[in-house]
């Protein structure tokens, strides 16, 4: 056996390469366990509750930075797109009393809205394109701009910079894709990601939970 290995370079080569790979594999596998990095789980969980509109109305460049800031102790009531539902969910997660929405950062609107550019009036200044955090506005200098409805999160940030005020925020009518059954309100935890109001369908002497958590943010956005 040893004779075969020593006198057959192909076998030696295979053994050496296999051995090297196994050794490096072992070292890397060991390192993967030893140097495992746990991210900050709290930031991830806060981020999951935020509506992900990336609108920046809270004063941070996006939802993730705001989640980071909340975990560092910032007030949780700075998210207008999320509204009271998000604040309650955050308060639930962080075990604090839920404050009401800080009006300084904007108001919460129940209906999902999208920006609409009145194209006759658009002068093609590109200012709204620069303001859009989602890259949802299409256009070029001195050409008419338009909004990609699917990308628009309705954050209002493009309305302010427009010099000719040709951007409207119009409520989005539910179509076949977005329409949902209005479920009967319950005091159960949300099954279909729908904010339920506190109406008891079944008589129960248990106290209803504060307000159930809304997790996907689509509706509130």
């Amino acid at each position, binding site marked *: 056996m040893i004779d075969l290995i020593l006198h057959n*370079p192909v076998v*030696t*080569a295979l053994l*050496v*390469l296999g051995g*090297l*790979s196994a050794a*490096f594999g072992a*070292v*890397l596998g060991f*390192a*993967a366990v030893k*140097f*495992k*990095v746990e991210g900050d789980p709290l930031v991830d969980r806060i981020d999951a509750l935020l509506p992900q509109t990336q609108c920046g109305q809270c004063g941070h460049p996006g939802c993730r930075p705001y989640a980071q800031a909340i975990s560092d102790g910032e007030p949780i009531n700075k998210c207008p797109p999320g509204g009271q539902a998000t604040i309650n969910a955050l308060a639930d997660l962080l075990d604090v009393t839920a404050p009401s929405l800080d009006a300084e950062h904007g108001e919460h609107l129940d209906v999902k809205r999208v920006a609409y550019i009145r194209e006759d009036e658009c002068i093609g200044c590109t200012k709204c394109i620069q303001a859009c955090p989602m890259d949802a506005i299409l256009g070029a200098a001195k050409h008419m701009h338009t909004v990609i409805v699917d990308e628009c999160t309705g954050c209002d940030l493009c309305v302010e910079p427009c010099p000719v005020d040709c951007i409207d925020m119009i409520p989005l009518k539910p179509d076949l894709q977005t329409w949902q059954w209005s479920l009967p309100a319950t005091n159960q935890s949300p099954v279909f990601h729908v904010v339920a109001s506190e109406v008891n369908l079944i008589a129960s002497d248990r106290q209803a939970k504060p307000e159930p958590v809304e997790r996907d943010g689509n509706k509130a956005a």
Partner: protein
Amino acid sequence: MSFSELAIILLSTVLVNNFVLAQFLGLCPFMGVSNKLESAIGMAGATTFVMTLASICTYLVDTWILAPLDLQFLRTISFILVIAAVVQFVKMFMEKTSPLLYRVLGVFLPLITVNCAVLGVALLNTQKAHNFFESTMYGFGGALGFSMVLVLFSAMRERLAVADVPVPFKGAAIGMITAGLMALAFMGFGGLVNLQ
């Protein structure tokens, strides 16, 4: 191995036999990540780190495993294996110990695996029959030269981006011309040190 010889190796790899401009290794990151000074500095840091470490590791593998078994023909493939493992290990280690540096280097760290300058330095080390310290110094010097050229070139490209370049020369074309002129300028260092 005297100190002066090591200093000569350093000087020769940084200036005279510069990996990018004289030996044409690592041209891909040289053109690819030199658009912005910041990313160039990140890439330079990561490459210096990996090249030094890789030249040490490949020297050890070559001397203690390949040479005794008379398997020098396996150099290229085993060096690639070593480099890939080293880069991956460094990435994990850095992520744990220095998250800030890890975030600065970002995507450049895994990119170095396929940087031909790293494989080049390992193969040149065996070709020139360097000993351990010479190999280390050669890798470090080569990486230093690469970093210097990369940072200088990216500084130039940042200026070029706002310069009034004729239309046919815009973009990558003027970058290539600049790199060529830089290589010409570095030829001036030829004969400064004579190795071997």
